């Protein structure tokens, strides 16, 4: 499996530079906490309102955190001229896509693994396996399209602006399903009640992993 060895090399490169700088995970985590705290002020903190708005707050926060960390993913490559380096490597564009995608997925999952317990703690909620599954599935969808658009946005003017404008309307289905499913999970619904929402997220993930994989080469050629 030469393909996967090359992919892992790119993901490892990202992980290594992240371990040295801690730039993405640390700053996005702080941002995530700030958003959660600010939402808390916006909605008041009674127990009933919290149960109602908590899933929404969670997913707005994760969507914004996703935009922030995905933006960094390619801006770092661009600033140091690494993207040119990657492109002259004897590897296909698809390898770059999968490698960068796995790197972003890893960072997002680390951020969420820390943010979720803090969120549950601050809002007095009970974490469940369901919520973890929803988060992982939705994050795969986020990074699948996010990596594609991040590579696109970095080559435009006003690049920090372009990613959210592209990313947010496309991930609307994920946000709807993740909010709904999280709400049900937090109110103790069994798995069967969540299945239709999880199926849509799963379908989104599968479709956009394939589509992004196929069109990624058009985004970073030249």
């Amino acid at each position, binding site marked *: 499996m030469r393909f996967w060895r090359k992919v892992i090399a790119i993901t490892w490169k990202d992980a290594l530079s992240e371990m040295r700088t801690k730039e993405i995970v640390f700053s996005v985590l702080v941002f995530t906490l700030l958003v959660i705290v600010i939402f808390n002020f916006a909605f008041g903190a009674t127990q009933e309102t919290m149960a109602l708005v908590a899933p929404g707050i969670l997913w707005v926060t994760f969507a914004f955190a996703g935009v922030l960390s995905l933006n960094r993913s390619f801006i770092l490559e661009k600033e140091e001229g690494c993207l040119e380096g990657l492109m002259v490597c004897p590897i296909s564009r698809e390898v770059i896509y999968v490698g960068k995608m796995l790197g972003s997925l890893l960072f997002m999952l680390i951020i969420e693994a820390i943010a979720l317990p803090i969120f549950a703690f601050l809002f007095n909620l009970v974490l469940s396996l369901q919520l973890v599954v929803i988060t992982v599935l939705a994050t795969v969808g986020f990074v699948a*399209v996010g990596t*594609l658009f991040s590579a*696109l946005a970095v*080559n*435009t*003017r*006003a690049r920090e*602006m*372009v990613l959210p*404008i*592209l990313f*947010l*309307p*496309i991930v*609307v*289905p994920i946000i*709807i*399903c993740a909010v*709904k499913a999280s709400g049900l999970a937090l109110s103790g619904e069994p798995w069967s009640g969540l299945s*239709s*929402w999880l199926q*849509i997220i799963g*379908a*989104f993930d599968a*479709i*956009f992993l394939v*589509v*992004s994989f196929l*069109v990624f080469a*058009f*985004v970073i*050629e*030249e």
Partner: protein
Amino acid sequence: MKENHIFRIGLGGLSFILFVGALYLVFLYVPTEETMGIVQRIFYFHVPVAWVAFLAFFIVFLGSILYLWKRDSKWDVIANSSAEVGVVFTTLVLITGSIWAKPIWGVWWTWEPRLTTALVLWLIYIAYLIVRSFATDEQRGARFAAVVAIVGFIDVPIVALAITLWRTQHPGPIIFQGGLTPPMLLTLIVCVAAFTTLYSLLLIQRVSMKNDEIEISRLQELSS
């Protein structure tokens, strides 16, 4: 060049005749709907406009695939022009939908599945136009926009599915259940034909304008 000109005038004439016919049918011929009353006549405007918006975005999708495949800027010009027309028509869908919703549902806006899908669709194609204008050069903009169009179009059914599951309170699509009387159906068909002709005309005009723009900037480069 000459033939093209005659064709466009012909298409313009056809569109004019169809619209006069459509206006006659909508305001004088078709009976007023029983429960909704006079306001229901906006239906004959709203539905064809929505149809044209979807058609326009489908053309954007096809044009984008062909552009990425063949690398002929002709396809990009078609996709771009169709996206502009599509955004205008989606805006009209949202406006006419709101005008219709106010007297019937009592609110200008409700997060009803088709309304919400139309809004998301509108946002995706606004992003399509923004990406193009933010690109550093023409070719790159064309490639980026094509990628956005492909991803965006594939996203639409998933958006519709998710929103439908999220909010189910809309009146079902009456058209396919035989809920329209023959005069209503006739009026609708004429209106759809009129708007589709108008779309073709706008698309052709916009494409030829864009081609002229490309030609002018090429000449400018030569002379400078």
